[in-house]
């Protein structure tokens, strides 16, 4: 079973990289991009086959290491 994890900065937390990307898009002639938020994407290959157990495991991994929950949110997708 695979888990896809997205880690993003919480809204309200300054994202200078996202701002730089938004600025670059504007200067490349792509108008109308109001805001860009940059995040991380992680793909985990799990031995666990039970979806509910796998979700619990990945949640624990996110809380302990994969995300810093002071400033980041995470979402988990199992495939």
């Amino acid at each position: 079973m695979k888990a896809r994890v997205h880690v993003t900065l919480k809204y309200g937390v300054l994202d200078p990289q996202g701002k730089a990307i938004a600025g670059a898009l504007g200067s490349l002639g792509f108008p109308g991009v109001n805001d860009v938020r940059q995040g991380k994407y992680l793909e985990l290959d799990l031995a666990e086959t039970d979806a509910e157990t796998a979700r619990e495991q990945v949640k624990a991994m996110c809380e302990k290491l994969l995300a810093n929950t002071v400033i980041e949110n995470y979402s988990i997708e199992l495939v």
Partner: protein
Amino acid sequence: MKAAVVVFPGSNRERDIALALERASYTKPAYVWHGDTELPAGTDLVVLPGGFSYGDYLRCGAMASLSPVMRAVKDHAARGGYVIGVCNGFQILAEAQLVPGVLMRNASLKFVCRDVHLKVEATDTAFTAGYRPGQVIRVPVAHAEGNYFADDETLNRLEGEGRVAFRYCDEAGEVTAAASPNGASRNIAGVFNDRRNVLGMMPHPENMTEAVVGGTDGALLFDSLAKALA
């Protein structure tokens, strides 16, 4: 003072800080590998040096904060033992939740490497007793992720409890946004834990301890520790 300098894969300031400790205390610190599970017996002070532990993968300090030695460092801190983390060491302390807050990408997006001025905010601690209250000192910074962030409630608590160690300021001691190299909340350059036996700071006092390199303002921090832990 028995000091232990923890070396992570990717640390690069461990010798600078060991020299500063030796100059202040006339005792060579021990180097401790990140995979060790114990500190040398009788360790008074643990130092987490600057550098790029674990290549800064995932987030600065995140992997190092979970390495085997950090359990011993946490126990040491819980017993009231002293810990200082500088630069990447500060990031590790924050990730390990030994000090509150996080270090984010510099607001300028640039790696900043230059001298800055700091206002010494708290002088009733083992780390800063040698400074005068409000003293303005000059030390270098070298980091890309030193933008200190915590929510307002945490910042208010830190200020109310005298746990802000240093703030970025200009040469005259004015705390202005322009004087901050990284956009840190309320210009915070260093913070203590609740018992003030753990200090995390972004600037490098260990690189300003000899007149030959441009100043000795950083030496007072190590002198203060050597005196407190004599």
